[in-house]
């Protein structure tokens, strides 16, 4: 039996046979997902058109065999950024084989419709590698409309947009109007779901994410690529170690000959926006950015400079456009880049952006679907704060591509809240202490000596927490946590300790806890899915 991970088929018919065999075998269907990885050996030294035919056939096999959660990300990626009629049509068809419709799919389908409608063409799904040469067959727009009909009331958010397709004069072909009507009818049909509109509109099914983070302790060292040499947009040479060590960095990949405007061109434009966000926060000197080309042989300094300039990228010593001059394969392996080549030219790649920590290790990656600039900046700020914040990390298993996804629990808010609790309920005199001890004796804690020095120490910890929350608020631009913690401290120190209002202590602790958690979670949002 052929192992997909190492399969080395020579011809396209052999590849088609392999895909058909996998689709027909319920025990091996999951392996189809593996064939959608851009860096798979099977795509090495294939042209772009061949890659399209091969990937399209895999998507059609998934349409027959059913799309699993693991394959869903690839299907949605094609809808999100695909510009090839065959692939978009195949992805639209494949999505309909997902076990159940979900409102989160509707924006992807609508985006695909917007992207492809002016490039609509007939496609043939009859046999491997076939092209439509008559008016029969389907088209991406037709498949997308069928997918909207499949989504039914789950696509309610897109109803107005779908209806407007019909209203546009000289818009879609008359032959497609029947498909539009069918989609509109299905979306309006309230009988198809028990409670239409109750599912969340913009979250992907659980387990699906385009964002992965690595906890501090589980990050892979960057030693294998430290000596990789780059040439920047000015022609200056610099090694990976020289540019990426000592500060966090945001890295995106692109190449100037990419003909999908939704990928490289948009990625580099978004990098420029990220740079502006960093400047606005006063962090442009503390966080480096880099755009590295996949095509270093062609993308000479003048080309990458022009490409960056045309997209508003800031270029200086801390923010560079780079091409690899030595160590390109090591770089590919280190980042596990989702790209493949025919000779030196890219045949297919995914969208990918990385956040590196101060050691040059990958702390987070955003892949396949469009990433949000603010999200990337927030996550990088978290990485920047790693040195100053005490953090513990809990690692949970992630998808095969990423060794770990991380959950960070910030310890400082807990300490801060405990300190507030201690200050609020600290015994004011030895008699009060004796009263506490009589309660503690139930738990066997009656041996604790009276320690009046503890109160100023707890106040100090509380103030440190306040300062930490303020700093985090300033960096993330979200100050609400700080205001709550300030109110809590005010209630404890002035109202409770100063004026002796006992109820103020409970309110103070609650406000401190709420503010600290809000502050901690505001940064954590960066590692969650937005799409």
């Amino acid at each position: 039996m052929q192992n997909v991970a190492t399969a080395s088929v020579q011809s396209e018919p052999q590849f088609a046979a392999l895909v058909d065999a996998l689709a027909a075998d319920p025990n091996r269907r999951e392996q189809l997902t593996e064939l959608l990885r851009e860096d798979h050996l099977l795509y090495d030294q294939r042209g772009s058109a061949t890659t399209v035919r091969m990937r399209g056939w895999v998507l059609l096999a998934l349409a027959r065999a059913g799309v699993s959660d693991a394959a869903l990300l690839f299907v949605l990626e094609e809808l999100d950024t695909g510009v090839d009629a065959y692939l978009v049509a195949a992805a639209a068809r494949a999505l309909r084989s997902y076990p159940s419709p979900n409102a989160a799919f509707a924006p992807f389908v609508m985006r695909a419709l917007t992207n492809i409608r002016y490039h609509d063409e007939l496609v043939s799904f009859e046999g491997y590698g076939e092209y439509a040469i008559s008016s029969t067959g389907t088209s991406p727009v037709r498949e997308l409309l069928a997918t909207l009909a499949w989504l039914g009331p789950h696509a309610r958010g897109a109803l107005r947009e779908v209806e407007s397709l019909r209203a546009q004069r000289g818009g879609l072909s008359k032959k497609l109007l029947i498909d539009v009507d069918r989609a509109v009818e299905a979306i309006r049909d309230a009988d198809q779901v028990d409670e239409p509109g109750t599912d969340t509109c913009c979250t992907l099914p659980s387990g699906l994410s385009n964002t992965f983070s690595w906890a501090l302790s589980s990050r892979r060292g960057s030693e294998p690529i430290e000596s990789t040499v780059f040439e920047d947009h000015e022609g200056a040479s610099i090694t990976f170690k020289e540019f990426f060590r000592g500060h966090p960095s945001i890295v995106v990949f692109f190449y100037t000959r990419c003909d999908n405007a939704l990928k490289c061109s948009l990625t580099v434009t978004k990098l420029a926006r990220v740079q502006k966000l960093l400047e606005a926060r006063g962090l442009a000197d503390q966080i480096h950015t880099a755009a590295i080309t996949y095509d270093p042989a062609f993308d000479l300094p003048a080309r990458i400079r022009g490409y960056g300039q045309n997209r508003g990228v800031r270029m200086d010593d801390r923010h560079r456009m780079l091409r690899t001059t030595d160590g390109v394969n090591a770089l590919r392996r280190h980042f596990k880049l989702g790209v493949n080549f025919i000779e030196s030219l890219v045949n297919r790649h995914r969208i990918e952006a990385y956040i590196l920590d101060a050691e040059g290790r990958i702390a987070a990656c955003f892949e396949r679907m469009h990433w949000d600039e603010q999200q990337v900046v927030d996550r990088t700020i978290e990485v920047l704060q790693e040195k100053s914040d005490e953090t513990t990390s809990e690692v949970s298993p992630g998808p095969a591509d990423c060794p770990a996804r991380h959950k960070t629990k910030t310890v400082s808010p807990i300490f801060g809240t405990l300190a507030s609790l201690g200050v609020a309920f600290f015994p004011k005199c030895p008699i009060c202490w004796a009263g506490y001890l009589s309660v503690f004796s139930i738990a066997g804690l009656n041996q604790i000596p009276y320690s009046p020095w503890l109160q100023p120490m707890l106040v100090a910890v509380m103030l440190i927490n306040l300062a930490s929350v303020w700093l985090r608020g300033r960096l993330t631009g979200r100050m609400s946590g700080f205001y709550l913690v300030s109110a809590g401290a005010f209630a404890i120190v002035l109202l409770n300790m100063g004026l002796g209002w006992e109820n103020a202590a409970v309110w103070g602790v609650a406000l401190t806890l709420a503010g600290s958690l809000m502050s901690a979670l505001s940064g954590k949002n960066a590692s969650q899915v937005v799409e």
Partner: protein
Amino acid sequence: MSTKKKAAKTSKSARKPKGGAMRSTRAAMSVATSARSTVKERVAAMAEAPLAVCESDKDLQAMLNVLRNKEEPVEVRLAAMDSLATAAFSVIKFESCRNDYIATLREVAQDPDPKIRESALGLLAGEKDGFAQKKLLEGLQNREKALVPPEKALQLLSYDVHAEAYSVARDIVEKPPNADAKREALRLLAADATSAPLFEKLLRDKDELREIRQISASALHGLNPGKLQRHAREMLLDNSEYDDIQATCLTALTQFGDDEAVGKDEALLKSVDRFSAGKTSSKYKQSARRFLSKYGR
């Protein structure tokens, strides 16, 4: 007469053809697709038709039928193809017609008439169409399957850098079926970074055709401008090099050279100065004047 009626009359008269000099696009469509009209009339009408070709499915199908119909005169079919291609240029207006248009182009790309095939493949190649690329590559690998001559296939494949044609183009440079095919193969390879050494070799080969050497210089400028400048300098210092090739080298250095390095290169400046004063072509003298004036001579 009411204002409404007046407006309607004005509008109607505005659309009316005057003295036969103008006709409505609808009338043009009617002539273009009518087998009763002469070839000349139909070709002329086709040129007026693009505005109407996508207005109704009936008109579109009529035009596509003319293009598909092997019984129609080739001139008319080619004019129909031009008319459709012009209409397709208005991407938004052409939205509803595009998929039938592309499918028909693929169909006629295998037409018995070579002009029809070439034009259809040209339009499809401009769309980076996978079908057209596959057919063109098959024709280059197997001459019996070729739909167009090799030089044309290479030219059309060069519209898309991702068309996986580099390997076959290299084979053609190695064993060219004709001089035109070699020239087009080199033009295609000008976007292939791994072909820089090939262009260096061809540029320095005095037995090669001038055109091939000039294409090589241009390709090398795109792929490795530093190397071109080094070769250009050496070729300008070479007394046995041809004038026109030296003129190309001078232009390269004048436009793209490292100003600081060239300005200090006394040997090069003297050599250009000396040659430009001697018996050389006017093209060389002109390039030399520009070069020397840039570097203060």
